[in-house]
């Protein structure tokens, strides 16, 4: 009897291992952080883009309307692609557009806005990229929809038609 237990154990162990690894083969091994919504916005100090005046983040997101925070840079190619959506959203009156200029050169960023128009009501600087980390972002572009100091939607990567309508739907 004892002799039989061992091969059975071996086969089942092998099957379990085979199954686990076979399943694992199909998993994507690129990790994207979980998109947690309803989290409070961070608090930080920064400078305004044009005037270079110091501002605190709670002053920026003080109101009760919707805020669309967009992390962008002039060197970021997908930012150009999503620009038309931002221009369109900036026409909506109940959304305040906030730009976070990520690790950028001031002149390049200014030219970017002159060339493609400025959709933002306010832009602040993030020269060393640490404010992006406060938001839980790790690249450009990323977009956050904020209401009452809470992040209600987080978008990693450029906006597209589907996301654009989703934002419109959420801010109705």
């Amino acid at each position, binding site marked *: 009897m004892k002799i039989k237990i061992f091969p059975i154990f071996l086969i089942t162990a092998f099957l379990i291992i085979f199954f686990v690894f076979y399943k694992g083969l199909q998993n994507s091994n690129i990790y994207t*952080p979980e998109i947690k919504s309803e989290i409070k916005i961070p608090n930080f100090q920064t400078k305004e883009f044009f005037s270079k005046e110091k501002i605190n983040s709670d002053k920026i997101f003080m109101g009760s309307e919707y805020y669309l925070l967009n992390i962008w840079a002039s060197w970021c190619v997908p930012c150009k692609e999503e620009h038309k959506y931002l221009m369109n959203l900036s026409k909506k009156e109940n959304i305040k557009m906030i730009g976070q200029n990520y690790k950028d050169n001031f002149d390049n960023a200014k030219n970017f806005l002159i060339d493609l128009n400025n959709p933002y009501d306010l832009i602040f600087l993030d020269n060393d990229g640490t404010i992006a980390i406060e938001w839980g972002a790790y690249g450009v572009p990323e977009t956050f929809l904020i209401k009452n100091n809470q992040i209600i939607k987080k978008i990693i990567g450029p906006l597209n038609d589907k996301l654009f309508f989703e934002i419109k739907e959420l801010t109705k």
Partner: protein
Amino acid sequence: MKIIKFFISVFFLINFSFSDSNAKNLEIEITKNLRCLICQGQSVYDSDSEFANSLKILVNKKLDEGLSEKQIYDYLKSRYGEWILYDPQFSKNTYFLWLLPILMFFVGGAIIFRLYNKN
């Protein structure tokens, strides 16, 4: 007497070199335990991506503010999830990972014990 003098000088030498580099060492230790999200598979310490460079600055800033190693990990975990740490902490998602080696040790021990007793 000579031996005592020798040990005292060695002690001081070690102390000096440690006290100087402690803060830097901690920063390196922390960034080595952080996974870079842009170039996945590399640690933040090894990576030179924009994200990793910002994270190095941030870790430095947080250490200056007086945060402990654990507080920095918690801070980053709340933003990017457990995945950012190379050394996962004990939780309900990782208990299997942590306990499996111990379990295997006991199972193996039991098998050896039984075989030994049989002989």
